[in-house]
C-alpha cells in the first residue's frame, strides 16, 4: 500500500468556503451510477484543478477534473470569475450609454456586439437604418469575425504545440486593428455603431485599407490551409477529439461553428436574416464529424466566406448617402448640427439625457451571428429610456455548457486543445 506523500498538500482552497464545498460535492454527485473504486492501490485517481489562472483556459475559466490515469472521468466547469453584472448595469443606463459596455463582453469581436445591441434597440423602437450604414456595419462585422477566428486559430494551434502560428495570425489581426483604428478611432473597443446608424463614414484611407486586406488575406489563408490540412501532427491531435453527434449538440444547446461542425446549418444570417444578409451570396460551412478538426474546417471556411461578403458589400454599397437616421427623436444629430444650431444642441442633450424610448410594455428579441455563435438581446421596455430588463444570450455560455459534456471521457492532455477548439470568451460567458 502506497503511503500518501506528505509533501503534497491535500488542503482544499479556503476562500469562499461554501462555494468550494458545493462544487466538490457536485463533482462527486455527477454520474452517480458509476461505481467508484475506493481501494485504488496505484493511486491513479486524482482530482485536478485547472485554472482559473492558466494560459490555456483563454481567460479565467476553472476546470475541475476527476482523473483516472490520463482519462477524465468527469469534470465540472466553474465560471463567474469575470462576472461584472452587465445586465444589472444595463437596467441603469440609457440604451446608447450601455453600448460601450457591450464591447467588453466578447472582447475579441467588439464590433459584432455593438451591432447586435443597436439592431435590437432599433427593432424594439422601430428605427430604420440608412442603407449605407447597414453596409458599413456588415463589412465591419465580417472583419471582426475574421479577427476573432484569427485569434482562435493562433491560440488553438499554440495549445496544440505550434508557436509560430500565433505570430502569423496576430500579424493579420494587427492589420484589422489598424483598419478599426482608421474607421472608428479605436483599435480594440471600437464603439463605432450608434442606435440609428454608425458614428462616422469610412474615410478614403479606411476603405483603401479594407480593400487591400481583402485582396491579400485569401493568400495567407491558402498558405495556412497548406500547412495545416495535411499536417500529420495537427490532424492526429485533432481528429476524433471531442466528437459530439448532432443530436447531443442540439440537446446540450451548442452554438455557432461548434454546432455547425456537427452538421446543423444553424446560422442566423440565413435562419433569420438581419441587415442585408438576405441579398448576399455566401455559403454556411458545415461538417458532420463534430470533432475538433471539423470545427477547424468550419471556422477556416467561414473566414473565406467573410471575405466574399465584404467584396459583395463593396460592390453593392451606395457611394454616398446618410450614415445615420436624420430624426432627432431616434438618433444623435450630426456634430455639424450640434456645433452650429441651437436645436441640434438641444437634441444632442436630449439624446444623452433620455435617449431612445421604446413603447411601454414592448418586448423583443433580436439575434445576430457573432463569430462565436448566436448573440441575442432580449429587451423588455417600460417606456423610459432605460430597459426594464435586458437579457444577453451569449454564445460562449452555451458552448461552455457543451464543453462540460464533451470533456467527459477525453484525455487530460486534450483539455487545452478542446477549450481552444470551443473558443469560449469568458467576458461573453460570464456577462
Amino acid at each position: 500500500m502506497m503511503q500518501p506523500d506528505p509533501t503534497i498538500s491535500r488542503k482544499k482552497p479556503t476562500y469562499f468556503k461554501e462555494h468550494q464545498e458545493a462544487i466538490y460535492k457536485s463533482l462527486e454527485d455527477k454520474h452517480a451510477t458509476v461505481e467508484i473504486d475506493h481501494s485504488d492501490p496505484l493511486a491513479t485517481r486524482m482530482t485536478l484543478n485547472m485554472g482559473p489562472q492558466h494560459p490555456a483556459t483563454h481567460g479565467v475559466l476553472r476546470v475541475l477534473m476527476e482523473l483516472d490515469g490520463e482519462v477524465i472521468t468527469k469534470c465540472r466547469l466553474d465560471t463567474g470569475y469575470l462576472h461584472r453584472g452587465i445586465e444589472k448595469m444595463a437596467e441603469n443606463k440609457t440604451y446608447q450609454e450601455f453600448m460601450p459596455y457591450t464591447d467588453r463582453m466578447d472582447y475579441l469581436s467588439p464590433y459584432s456586439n455593438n451591432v447586435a445591441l443597436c439592431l435590437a434597440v432599433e427593432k424594439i423602437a422601430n428605427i430604420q437604418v440608412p442603407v449605407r450604414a447597414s453596409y458599413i456595419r456588415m463589412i465591419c462585422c465580417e472583419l471582426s469575425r475574421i479577427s476573432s477566428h484569427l485569434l482562435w486559430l493562433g491560440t488553438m494551434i499554440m495549445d496544440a504545440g505550434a508557436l509560430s502560428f500565433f505570430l502569423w495570425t496576430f500579424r493579420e489581426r494587427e492589420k484589422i486593428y489598424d483598419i478599426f483604428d482608421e474607421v472608428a478611432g479605436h483599435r480594440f473597443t471600437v464603439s463605432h455603431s450608434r442606435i440609428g446608424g454608425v458614428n462616422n463614414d469610412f474615410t478614403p484611407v479606411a476603405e483603401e485599407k479594407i480593400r487591400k486586406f481583402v485582396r491579400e488575406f485569401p493568400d495567407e489563408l491558402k498558405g495556412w490551409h497548406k500547412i495545416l490540412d495535411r499536417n500529420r501532427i495537427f490532424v492526429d491531435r485533432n481528429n476524433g477529439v471531442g466528437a459530439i453527434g448532432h443530436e447531443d449538440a442540439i440537446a446540450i444547446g451548442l452554438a455557432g461553428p461548434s454546432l455547425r461542425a456537427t452538421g446543423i446549418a444553424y446560422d442566423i444570417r440565413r435562419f433569420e436574416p438581419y441587415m442585408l444578409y438576405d441579398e448576399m451570396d455566401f455559403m454556411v460551412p458545415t461538417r458532420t464529424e463534430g470533432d475538433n478538426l471539423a470545427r477547424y474546417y468550419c471556422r477556416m471556411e467561414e473566414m473565406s466566406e467573410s471575405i466574399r461578403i465584404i467584396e459583395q458589400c463593396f460592390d453593392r454599397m451606395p457611394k454616398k448617402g446618410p450614415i445615420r437616421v436624420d430624426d432627432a427623436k431616434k438618433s444623435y444629430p450630426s456634430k455639424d448640427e450640434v456645433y452650429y444650431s441651437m436645436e441640434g444642441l438641444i437634441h444632442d442633450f436630449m439624446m444623452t439625457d433620455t435617449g431612445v424610448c421604446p413603447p411601454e410594455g414592448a418586448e423583443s428579441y433580436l439575434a445576430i451571428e457573432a463569430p462565436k455563435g448566436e448573440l441575442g438581446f432580449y429587451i423588455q421596455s417600460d417606456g423610459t429610456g432605460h430597459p426594464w430588463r435586458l437579457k444577453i444570450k451569449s454564445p460562449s455560455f452555451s458552448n461552455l455548457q457543451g464543453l462540460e459534456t464533451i470533456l467527459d471521457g477525453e484525455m487530460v492532455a486534450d483539455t487545452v486543445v478542446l477549450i481552444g477548439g470551443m473558443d469560449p470568451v469568458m467576458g461573453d460567458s460570464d456577462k
Partner: protein
Amino acid sequence: MNTDIRDNLLQDIREYLGDGLLEVYLDYKHPLLLIERDRLHDTCRFLKNTMHFIYLNEIIGTDRFTSEDRFEVIYHLVSLRDRQRLFVKVRVDEELPVLPTVTDIWKGANWNEREVYDMFGIRFEGHPDLRRIFLPEDFKYYPLRKEFPLLGVPGSLEMPNSTPDHD
C-alpha cells in the same frame, strides 16, 4: 418567416392548452405565450415532441416588481425545421418561487436554470445540480432582483486572502 406556419402553430398550441393559455403577444416577429404555471412541464414536452421545438436557446428571468406573480421566466425555443422562434412565459410568486425543471426535456436547460436561480432565486424542482453559476455559494443575495442596489451590499462577500500565509 412564414406567417402561415406561425398561425398554424398558434392554432395547434391553443387547441392543446385550452384555458391554460393566458395571453398571446406578438413582438414584431415572434410569438410570446403566457401559460399557466401548472401546465409548464407538459407544454414543454408537447412543444418538443409534437411541434419540433428541439433547441432550447435560453431561459430568461424577469423581475416584474409587482405584488402578485412577481417573477416571470421565459423559455426561448427554436424550431429548426419551421424556422420559428417561440417564447413561453410562466409567472411565479415571490412567496414560493419554485418551478418544475425542464432539464429532463432539454439537457441544455441545466446551466440556464442555474443562471436564473443565481440571479433571481427561483428554484427549479428536480434540477440535477442546482448551484449558483456566476456568484459564489457564500453570497446570500439575488442581484438581478430590483431591490438589490446597483452598488452592491458592502461586506456581503468575503474577499480572498491576498497573502500567502492567510493572515
